[in-house]
């Protein structure tokens, strides 16, 4: 019961604010609604007993990436530039693409429903209180089986950081770091 309430609450908030995010004209509003979506998704993670991912989502996504977005929006002060029309002919294309994609996934879901044995609706799920401590499990997995990807990801982040600094650096050079 609690599960379903939580799921519908978080899911509803996520979808609603995602829609608002795409439709709001003001980029800052979009960012705020995206934050709401991300928080709701974090709630879904918590409901799925992925505590570490829940807090990682909050710290990294909301506290890090979204702050970066807001920072850039402030830098460029988009509200000034936003008196243009929002939708153009792309709109039709976009809806078509989205619909096609949606049908495709729905079709797969429908097909999977009729799969024998372990299809999509699995009934035997470990009950929450029998789960091993989440962060410990994650850490073990991350630092043993997935050590190489982990290192690669860290190199990727480093490269991205250097790239971002180089990109954003003022051409005026030394005076602003």
């Amino acid at each position, binding site marked *: 019961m609690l599960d379903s309430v939580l799921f519908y609450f978080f899911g509803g908030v996520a979808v609603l604010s995602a829609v608002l995010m795409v439709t709001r004209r003001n980029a800052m509003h979009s960012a705020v609604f995206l934050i709401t979506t991300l928080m709701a998704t974090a709630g879904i993670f918590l409901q799925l007993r992925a505590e570490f991912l829940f807090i990682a989502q909050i710290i990294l996504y909301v506290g890090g990436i979204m702050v970066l977005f807001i920072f850039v929006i402030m830098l460029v*002060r988009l509200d000034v530039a936003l008196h243009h029309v929002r939708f153009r002919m792309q709109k039709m294309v976009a809806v078509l693409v989205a619909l096609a994609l949606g049908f495709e996934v729905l079709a797969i879901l429908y097909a999977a429903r009729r799969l024998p044995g372990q299809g999509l609706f699995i009934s035997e799920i470990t009950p929450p209180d029998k789960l091993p401590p989440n962060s410990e499990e994650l850490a073990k997995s991350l630092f043993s089986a997935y050590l190489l990807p982990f290192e690669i990801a860290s190199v990727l982040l480093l490269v991205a950081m250097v790239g971002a600094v180089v990109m954003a650096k003022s051409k005026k050079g030394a*005076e602003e770091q």
Partner: protein
Amino acid sequence: MREEGTNQNATLLGADELVLNMGPQHPSTHGVLRVKLKLDGERVRGTECVIGYLHRGVEKIAEHRTYQQFAPYVDRMDYVAAVSNGLGYCEAVEKLLNAEAPPRARVIRTILTELQRIASHLVWLGTHALDIGALTPLFYCFREREEILKIFERYCGARLTTHAFRIGGLQYEAYDGFEKDVERFCKDFERRIQEYMDLLTGNSIWIGRTRNVGVLSAADCIALGASGPILRASGVKWDLRKAQPYAAYDQYQFEIPVGTNGDTYDRYLVRMEEMRQSRLICLQAIERIPDGPIMGKVGKVLKPPAGEVYHSIEAPKGILGYYLVSDGTTQPYRVRVRPPSFVNLQAFDKMVRGHLVADVVAIIGTLDIVLGEVDR
């Protein structure tokens, strides 16, 4: 913030400069100075000072008052150092009258003026430190300034705009225990000033905030007409108390502190040392205050001969000059004041360019302006 002249569409990134309007209502523009800053990010690319919010037409008022009547008005220009303003005016009129204050009056004037210099520098130190974010020195400074104001109050009944001196000498005799009060203050003050030095001088944040901020070279200072501690911090040993002694300064020994870099830190050190020197002057002066009358021979009605005179003194903030033109009547024909704050403020743009917003307040603080004097 939607002032005329500020660009609403300015961005923090683009080629467009962001115009930040500081003041006239701002916690650290020391009154009603208004500065328009052109910013690139947080870096200042240009400034424009807007003054006049405190303009009262002091110089014009003078033309419709007798010489004595005008004397209280000068206290209201640099209201942080009213005694020094009064001294400059009284001596200028005396020069015009070819009169002289008796020796006793001159010594007492010197003592009070030096106390006023300490008080003025204390206000500067407190507010300057507060601008840079140190909260506590302000209260310590005001505690000491309170002692000085108490001496003023006992002497003439007023604390801030004292009107302590009269043309030709003094109205009030030094009260009983005047020397003792001054001596007690001076004895105590050495310890206090060490306290401020302990709080700030070696503090690495303070050094980081002030060193190499708002650098003025000696040549810049002279070209801009900057005077007082600002000039001396740039290494020019120019102090009217030594160069053109007035009051009783020729009787006392004191040093003129000079800086080397001409940055905010040097100005801080120079002013701190000036307070110490003022303390020494006071101590020397109270040792022997000559007896005699306190009022020179000037009539009840002042009618200076037609002519003009310029007299300048070393006020706490720099050279304070009075230019008086007399047409032989009881009222001055024209009075022109050379206020140190106003002239020193000219250096602001030069000092600020290329610095950050945070340095702007540090530089306004180090200029030690009083808007009452800038706007007059």
